[in-house]
């Protein structure tokens, strides 16, 4: 179990990590999600013992590990860049941590072949890393981390430099493989989509602070504040400044009746965030707020369309299934459905989130079948 207690890190006069407290259980998968420079790498370096925190304490299995050199700790780390020993074969690369630990030859051989089979490297064991593709090189680095039998495995955007499809495949395999080792598994990424695919728990980071930590899907469904919601949304959330009075939310002079949790909120100004796939281009059933917008760009992927619109000086994006053809400059109405409102107060704290069963959604197959 890895525990960070009020950990801060200052370098010069810059705060890299601000008062972070986290608890990662044995055998758990934990995602650090945040944009570049949000502190993911700094936090991992602290966890690994490569850096010392300016204040706070780090415990591993109940014992403080601050100041313990990284060599004495059983930590494995994989970086975004493919780091292997260029002069050694893939076999020796994978075997290297066990050679250092003085494991007997027979065990090494068995473990290397097991790891190689898992990572689909069996046929490349005799090659040197430079004769491999990027994906194979990164799999070699991962295999090495795997055989080390480390208590703590830190992966710093390990798939960022790989081809899209390869990333997709490894992303599915990695959590399964590492779950079996029983290590504390920490995975840093900039992509919300990747965090969701990995599952487990997620710590959302921004500017060196952990804005929320919890089960990945919960953090996604109930982001504690606006910054977490933004960190965990790709494409970005649509922000609508609204005023609530009585049982209605108003924007741009138009209002929509709300019920349940939303109706119970105090009257006043709120920031409402709506996920792109909940910004409707066709009126769904029930009460909605229709807003006239101007199309600024459209992007069509064949299965989905991203419609970027502008209204009242705000930029929104709607994501719909299927091909939705609109011309740039067209005036189109978009529909804001209160059932999909994330409501934040003026301090950016979440006060209401959509309930999971009441969400409006399109039927994927029928929406896609509508064209073509």
């Amino acid at each position, binding site marked *: 179990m890895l525990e960070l207690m009020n950990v801060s890190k200052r*370098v010069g006069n810059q705060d*890299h990590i601000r008062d972070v407290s986290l608890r990662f259980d044995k055998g758990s998968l934990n995602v650090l999600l945040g944009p570049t420079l949000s502190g993911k*790498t*700094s936090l991992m*370096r602290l966890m690994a013992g*490569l*850096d*010392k925190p300016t204040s706070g304490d780090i415990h591993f299995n109940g014992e403080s590990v601050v100041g313990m*050199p990284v060599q004495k700790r059983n930590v494995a780390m994989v970086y975004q860049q493919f780091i292997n020993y260029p002069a050694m074969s893939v076999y020796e690369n994978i075997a290297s941590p066990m050679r250092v630990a003085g494991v007997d030859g027979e065990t090494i051989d068995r473990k290397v072949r097991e790891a190689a089979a898992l990572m689909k490297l069996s046929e490349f064991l005799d090659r040197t890393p430079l004769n491999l593709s990027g994906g194979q090189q990164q799999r070699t680095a991962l295999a090495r981390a795997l055989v080390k039998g480390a208590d703590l495995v830190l992966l710093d955007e390990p798939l960022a430099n790989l081809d899209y499809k390869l990333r997709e495949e490894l992303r599915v395999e990695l959590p399964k493989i590492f779950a079996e080792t029983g290590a504390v598994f920490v995975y840093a990424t900039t992509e919300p989509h990747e965090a969701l695919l990995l599952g487990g728990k997620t710590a959302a980071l921004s500017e060196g602070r952990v804005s929320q930590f919890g089960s990945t899907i919960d953090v996604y469904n109930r982001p504690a504040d606006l910054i977490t919601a933004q960190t965990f949304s790709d494409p970005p959330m649509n922000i609508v400044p609204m005023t609530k009075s009585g049982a209605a939310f108003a924007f741009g002079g138009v209002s929509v009746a709300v019920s349940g949790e939303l109706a119970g909120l105090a009257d006043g100004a709120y920031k409402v965030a709506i996920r792109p796939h909940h910004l409707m281009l066709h009126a769904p059933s029930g009460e909605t707020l229709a807003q006239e917008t101007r199309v600024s760009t459209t992007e069509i992927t064949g299965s989905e369309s991203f419609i970027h619109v502008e209204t009242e000086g705000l930029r929104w994006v709607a994501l719909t299934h299927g091909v939705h053809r609109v011309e740039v400059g067209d005036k189109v109405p978009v529909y804001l459905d209160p059932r999909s409102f994330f409501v934040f107060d003026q301090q950016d704290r979440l006060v209401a989130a959509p309930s999971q069963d009441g969400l409006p959604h399109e039927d994927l197959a029928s929406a896609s079948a509508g064209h073509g």
Partner: protein
Amino acid sequence: MNKVQNNKAWFMVLPVLVIVALNAVVPLMTVVNYSVQDTFGNNVFFFEGTRWFSEVLASERFHGALGRQFSLTATILAIEIPLGVAIALAMPRSGFWASVCLVLMALPLLIPWNVVGAMWNIYALPDIGLLGYGLNWLGISYDYTQQPLAAWFTVILMDVWHWTSLVVLLAYAGLQSIDENYYRAAQIDGASRWAVFRYIQLPKMKHVLTIAILLRFMDSFMIYTEPFVLTGGGPGNSTTVLSIDLVKAALGEFNLGIASAMSIIYFLMTLLVCWLFYTITMQGEKS
């Protein structure tokens, strides 16, 4: 990216610090000691304060040596830096010929100073040396043992031959670090050869050239062997630069106080110039 912080690293450096202390700091302290005292032999010393320093700083002899030293260093830098950069630019960037060029460039650097001196000494002799004889045959009167200008020219030639390679290698390393895409982008932007040099190559070479200039400045400011082997500082005083003058004072005239004061003044000058140069270059970087 922040660096690993580990106080134990200091222990690793300790042996080097001890060696540096023994071979640099201790002799330097002896010199400092001599520079403020006088002796009439028998190891009896008198404290003289700053007398030697004021004497040196006021002397004609020092002004002359200093003037010659600065013009020599300036000339050497003015030739070696542009020439080195030009050669580096002309060298092939990869392949067999790149290796051949690198080996050829490294050759002069492998030859000891006094060998270089002796080589050029003979090579430039007006009666039997190929260069000296050749020049005279062409109708150019050349004799470094008699003509101050010829001696001056020979010393510079020796240094350029010996040390331009260092600038070449440093500049070449700087050029190698430039990503191919920069050249492609410049090509697409329609940049001239000069624009590529001015806006891509020169900015990328800035750091290595700073180092090259510092090294060449320090080295040439301390130049000794070349003029010594060639003419011993002559003809007359024409190639008596600072270090030649210093050795004359210390070993020729056994003026220990004066010589020590001189060494300290030279040392401080080198340090000052290097510091100024480094600070100015690095300041441009920050703004």
